[in-house]
């Protein structure tokens, strides 16, 4: 039942993101995050944190979004699942580009590029 609620919160969060409702999405992802942690479901936990990153970015909180994305990378490392790493690094770099911090952007694009050719294994 908790697992179903978590799934549902993730789904609603996604839908709200699409609609551009950053605040409402954030509430859903926070709920999903809490439930996923109490369930010990790392896949759902990561999806929730990824949602929090997208919602923060949409809400004009770029540094908060970066923080969430670094957390996504941490969870992936714990899980030994590196498929989404290129994605996460690329998105962090995009955010730094948006706020004009090109040095940081370049640093993260380099990590992105290093991982885009061998999805699925750590570099």
């Amino acid at each position, binding site marked *: 039942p908790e697992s179903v609620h978590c799934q549902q919160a993730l789904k609603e969060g996604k839908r709200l993101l699409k609609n551009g409702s950053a605040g409402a999405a954030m509430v859903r992802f926070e709920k999903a995050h809490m439930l996923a942690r109490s369930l010990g479901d790392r896949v759902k936990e990561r999806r929730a944190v990824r949602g929090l990153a997208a919602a923060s970015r949409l809400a004009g909180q770029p540094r908060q979004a970066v923080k969430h994305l670094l957390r996504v990378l941490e969870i992936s490392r714990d899980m030994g699942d590196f498929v989404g790493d290129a994605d996460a690094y690329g998105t962090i770099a995009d955010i730094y580009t948006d706020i004009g911090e090109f040095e940081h*952007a370049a640093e993260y694009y380099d990590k992105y590029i290093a991982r*885009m050719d061998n999805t699925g294994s750590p570099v």
Partner: protein
Amino acid sequence: LETVPTIKALRSKAEAIRALELEKTLARLGEGMTNKQKKAVEDLTKSIVNKLLHGPMTALRCDGADPGAVSQTLANMEALERMFDLAA
């Protein structure tokens, strides 16, 4: 660092294509697929795009130490902006 916005523009162009095509396919046959299958198809589209863009992205990054490399990186940037229609 001048190439940073180009990297973002190229990523976003590729992502728009990938997401749209994936959505069209899942809308057509997503009903009959498990979540695991959908995830695998999504990962497949990501890894194809990543592997295809690896060369162009690498060409947009250089140390900036060697002046020859800098001018080549700028030439790559201009060519990519023309080819992928990435007007900033």
